[in-house]
């Protein structure tokens, strides 16, 4: 256990269930306390879970191409709910088709995500970044 709690789930009406299971497993293996909300997760569910568990980060996964619509407003709602500056990460197949990822990344960073990942990013990449951002293993 590294003492860090992360809340994760697949946002919106998205039912792709396999990726989040793997992600949850990988983060648990890496020492995180994982609160996995599964699929079809609303913005409110991430926020409520993060408040109750005093989470250190929120990880959003979206695979069906409508991530942009589903993620909009999440940062503002977090601020409203008192989760000030909680780190937020997003990955999966965020938009429909093969749009230039630099463009997609810009959109999600503007929305308030700390990092956004292109399709097919391995969980290990996220684990490395999030561990660094949260200061895991540092005194």
């Amino acid at each position, binding site marked *: 256990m590294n003492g860090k709690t992360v809340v994760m789930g697949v946002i919106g009406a998205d039912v792709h269930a396999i990726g989040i299971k793997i992600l949850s497993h990988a983060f648990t293996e890496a020492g995180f306390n994982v609160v996995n909300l599964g699929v079809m997760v609303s913005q409110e569910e991430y926020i*409520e879970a993060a408040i109750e568990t005093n989470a250190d980060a929120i990880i959003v996964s979206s695979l*069906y191409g*409508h991530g942009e619509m589903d993620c909009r407003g999440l940062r503002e709602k977090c601020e409203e709910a008192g989760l000030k500056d909680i780190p937020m990460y997003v990955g999966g197949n965020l938009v429909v088709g093969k749009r230039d990822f630099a463009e997609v990344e810009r959109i999600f960073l503007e929305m308030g995500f700390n990092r956004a990942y292109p399709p097919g990013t391995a969980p290990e990449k996220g684990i490395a970044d999030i561990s660094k951002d949260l200061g895991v293993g540092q005194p």
Partner: protein
Amino acid sequence: MNVRDESRKDSGFILAVDFGSTFTKVVAISTEKPEILGTAKSPTTIGTDIRGGLNNAVKELTAQTGKLTFTHKLAASSAYGGLKMVAVGLVPSLTAKAANLAACSAGAKVVKTFSYELNASEQEEIHGIQPDLILLSGGTDGGNKDVILHNAKKLAEIESDFAVIIAGNKSAAEDAREVLTRSGKHAVICGNVMPVFNTLDTLPARDAINALFLEKIIKAKGLAQAAREMTMPIIPTPLAVFECMQLLSENLGDILAVDVGGATTDVYSMCRGAPTLPGVTQKGLPEPFAKRTVEGDLGMRHSQETLIDKITSSQFETKLPDIESYRTACRSDYAYIPPAGSPHAHFDQMLAGTAVDIATTRHAGYLETAYTPFGESFYQMGKDLTAVKYVVGIGGPIIYTDDPASILQNAATPTRHATTPTRDNVLKPASPKFIWDKKYIFSAMGLLARVDKQLALRILESEL
């Protein structure tokens, strides 16, 4: 010696008592037949020795049955306002809800549930409620500590002698107790109602509530002497009813029960409540099989304004009797029973029907529609009760009317048999049968089940 004689040695009579706020009700049970020998009631002697009313009721009972020697004397009580509780949690749909469910499952009259950081006006409100106990939760184990600690401080400031059960984040529980005991409050710690996210664990809190009820509340409510005359500990009446409903569901299958009272309307459901419609995803806290909810704003007397407002703002306004005279009559005597057939009696029926409607709507689950790029999809929050076969009526305002079924009809869905999910669908029973506690024996059977479950089951079977 033959077997029959052997079993006779054990046979005898059991007395079950229900100390109500208005009446003390007694039931005599023969273990041999098994059957109910008789029932009686007498006004509860509040202010003086509560045993006075009990003795009067027993006298009336034995006038019917002849003299009986009781091998067991069991009692439940809702006198002096019952076990009045307030639940406090963090997020409304998570630990606040879990705390409420835990307190309800212990048979408490949960007047109100608070969430997030308590403020000064909520402190005032709690002071005004004068709860016997407060269940304080908040945070999963290792989760949020700030809010439960803040709330412990706010509760410590309230000048009132309630006890506090701490059932929240284990990492903050000891500090919370420290704050409370320093202010002179009795505070105990038990297991978290939500130790892990979205996992309910209401048993430790329920046991802690029941223990404090025995230790402190019985005495505080002047029941100590009566308790010594009983052969088992006195329990809150709603807990006895809850246990009777669990028993009844062993016999009848899935049930929904409504108990309309003077101050609250209680709803019980005994069923899993999993989605019955295809393509529906269950969301929210897992629902307990045996679930009880208490609506503190839906009472026939003490808290009748919600119900009166609801009725007067509905379309039937023209048919209403003189509401002011009704209000006055109710206020001058909280035990007011209008003469049969009078306009007040008619209004009572409307009030009871409305209480059943609102309370079961709040208890039942509902469907929410999400509009997605691929059409509509449905989320179910709470229990799907559409397939529940029986609706059970409890409490004077339902039982003592000409037509209990028409009041209970309000527990069923008005739009019969939804076969496809529709928007904002409340998942109440679609086409249930209605039964009710004609002889007022449910709390007695709940008590009896603590001594002999099979006996209670057999009597319930023959009485219904």
